[in-house]
């Protein structure tokens, strides 16, 4: 069990986080400029792009041959602002560049975020998600990862401004209120299960955040014309993220139970974190079910989704700070 902390690396990690916040804020500005002045990305033909660019696992098969996909041309977000047939109103040239720069900035921020996590992990000689500060940093990383991957395959760049803002706020909150010095973890966390259980929770949470952002946009955007894509499209983005996140979340909870069976002497004991992990699970299950079987669409489905997202956030913030239990490893300062 390593006890020595490499403080040089720990400090580097802290500085990288500050750089990441800065980069996300700058990226946010770029995305916002693109959204405000650039080509309206998800105009009528783009609706079909989405259907063609299919992200559901079944449709993963290689060469795409539908007409919609051909119109998409590049599909790689970064450069599809160039070489596209002119929209109704020609956007200023700098707006197109803003989008490219924004993607570059958030990719750079993603890299520094990753660097911060690695430096933190190496400095303490363990997985870098052993307390709430590290956990929130990792979730922000996961949310940006989810967004970058999605925008490389589908025209969802409009989410950029909002995901960047969420990530920058999350990191800022972590730095300001949650930061603790890098160090070793308590014996209960000293297990390979942390790599399985917490990693799964992180990636599921990152995807849920992207879905949550899309859901909030759905509610704030009216039905009228807007620079944002249509409500249907917003809902589809959210649904897609949740379809991927939900099995990962399920896995995280089951892995938690397996770990609890090793660490706490029972696999399920209605500890507050367990209760809320379960509630979150049920809420997202209800969302998927409502869409699949009851055919819920639009506002009702989005509200269920946001309730589930609220449960997720409560589990992260409320349970760690206000309720104590076995799961109190968060070391909230």
């Amino acid at each position, binding site marked *: *069990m390593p*006890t020595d*902390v490499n403080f040089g690396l720990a400090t580097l990690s802290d500085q990288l986080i500050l750089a990441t916040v800065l980069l996300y804020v700058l990226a946010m500005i770029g995305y916002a400029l693109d959204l405000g002045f650039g080509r309206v990305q998800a105009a009528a033909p783009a609706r*079909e792009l989405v*259907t*063609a660019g*299919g*992200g*559901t*696992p*079944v*449709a993963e*098969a290689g060469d*795409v*041959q*539908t*007409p*919609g*996909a051909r119109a998409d041309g590049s599909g790689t977000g970064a450069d599809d602002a160039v070489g596209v047939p002119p929209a109704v109103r020609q956007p200023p040239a700098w707006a197109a560049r803003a989008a490219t720069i924004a993607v570059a900035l958030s990719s750079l921020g993603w890299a520094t975020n990753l660097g911060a996590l690695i430096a933190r992990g190496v400095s303490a000689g363990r997985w870098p998600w052993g307390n709430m500060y590290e956990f929130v940093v990792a979730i922000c990383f996961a949310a940006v990862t989810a967004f970058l991957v999605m925008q490389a395959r589908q025209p969802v760049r409009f989410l950029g401004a909002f995901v960047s803002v969420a990530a920058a706020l999350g990191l800022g909150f972590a730095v300001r209120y949650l930061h603790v*010095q890098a*160090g*070793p973890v308590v*014996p*209960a966390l*000293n*297990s390979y*299960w942390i790599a399985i259980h917490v990693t799964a929770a992180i990636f599921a949470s990152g995807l849920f955040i992207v879905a949550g952002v899309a859901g909030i946009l759905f509610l704030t955007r009216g039905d009228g014309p807007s620079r944002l894509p249509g409500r249907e499209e917003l809902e*589809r983005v959210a*649904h897609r993220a949740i*379809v991927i996140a*939900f*099995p990962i979340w*399920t896995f995280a909870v*089951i892995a938690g*139970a*397996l*770990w609890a*069976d090793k*660490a*706490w*002497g*029972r*696999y*399920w*004991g*209605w*500890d*507050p974190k367990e*209760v809320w992990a*379960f*509630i979150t699970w*049920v809420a997202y299950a*209800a969302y*998927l*079910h409502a869409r*699949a*079987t009851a055919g819920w669409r639009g506002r009702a489905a989005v509200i269920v989704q946001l309730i589930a997202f609220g449960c997720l956030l409560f589990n992260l913030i409320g*349970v760690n700070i206000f*309720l104590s*239990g076995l799961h109190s490893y968060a070391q909230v300062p």
Partner: protein
Amino acid sequence: MTLTDEVRADPVRPAGFGPMGWLRWAWRLLTSMRTALILLFLFALASVPGSLYPQRSISPEKVAQYFKDSPGLAAWLDRLWLFDVFTSPWFAATYLLLFISLAGCVIPRANAHLRELRRTPPAAPRNLSRLPQHATFAAPGATVEVLAARLRKKRFRVVTGPGWVAAEKGYLRETGNLLFHGALLALLVAVAAGGLYGYRGNVLLVEGNGFANTVAAYDRYIPGQRVPAESLEPFSFTLEDFQATYVATGERRGQPLDFSARLKVADRPGAPERPYDLRVNEPLDVDGTQTYLIGHGYAPTFKILDGKGQVAFEGAVPCLTADQATYTSECVIKAPDAEPDQLGFLVRFLPTTVRAQDGSYLSVFPGAANPTAQVFAFSGDLGLRSGKPQSVYQLDTKNLKPLVMGVNTKPLGVGETLPLPGGAGSIQLTGVREWISLQIAYDPGRVPALLAAGLSVLGLVLSLTVRRRRIWVRLKEGQDGAPAEVEVGGLTRTEGGAGFTEEFSQIVTALRGPEAGETASRQGVKDAH
């Protein structure tokens, strides 16, 4: 959820039905998918108070505190079982209803699905161009057999008729859906079985002492309703040594790093002893009975002489940890055999003692670097003969005469003796040992519960990712030697049908066969979106 699912109509209230009609209506209502969903929601909602109010099963001391702080409110909360949410009748009612609802929903659906699996895909509808996906292409020399073979190669289930092919795939979706719901049922059963046929208990064990797994050896023993006392796995072990390691310097000084208890385990009476290193994430497993290390503390050893010079007490005294950061501990020693007067002691054990500026002594580190004991001694009737049960961790000093009370006098180091005033005897700190607290649990439901959980995830992934789709192909003979024309229609009703456009075009390409050029294949696809 699938193409052929009869949508279950809302159970309409039966007008003027007899009692059987009402029962049938209630059963329909209870077993409808929607009710199952609502019950699952209620189940989640019912668990919320369990996370907001302290629970007896988890932290009884907090419940006691609640009663002390606001007795009126606590009494009401207690009447509503809010301190025992997870064993309350209303919680049980929600999950029993959920259980029945799931069972009533899954079984008929499984039957329907089995029938569905044996059924062949329905014949092609008259007008394929009305379907959401539709394409036509010219195919010289195409036959029904060739087209059917090409669909089979794409793993479709295929039937053919004169001039048409009907194909379907994605049955795994409903299979997954049923697997998921069935596995949830199995999970509930496994959890319940674990509660009925399992047991758990706690013991506190001081270094050097042993434990044999019998009901009498437990400090607290909670059996399920169906556990006979003789059925406990007959293993035993001795605690040879316990080691706790802490961070020694820096901001996190005192944070625990590692706990390790060296045990000598005999799996059965008479079996050879084997060493086992018990750690936090590494419970001892003897044939499914798990022993967990869940806590530790100090048990200083004392030797007490009474007023007559006889040994009134000798041995280890497990202390309660009063402060987790420094392991300042509080101990009680009762020496009822002391003469002429019984002796009682309250001891503050300080593992790493330093003298503070104000002259008091305190512990600054959880490890035993400089252990001392502050002794408060009393004499008189300890009240043990009254027959009222007493806690070994409490000393009622009301009727006792204080002998030694100095907070600021130098505490006893190891080996030091404190003579009691008035020739009442003496107390010596002879050494420091540690205790560990163990939880021993047998839960026969844990492996089945894991299997059920794993199957439910598998089912879930299948039902979320597999799409049920149908393809129909109709072959139109060309007139006067013109090439035959093939018409294809496709249908999916599943969520995520978006990606189907793409899959459909791939299917069409496959149907055209290898001889068709790529560019040609694109032209024929008419996207009906």
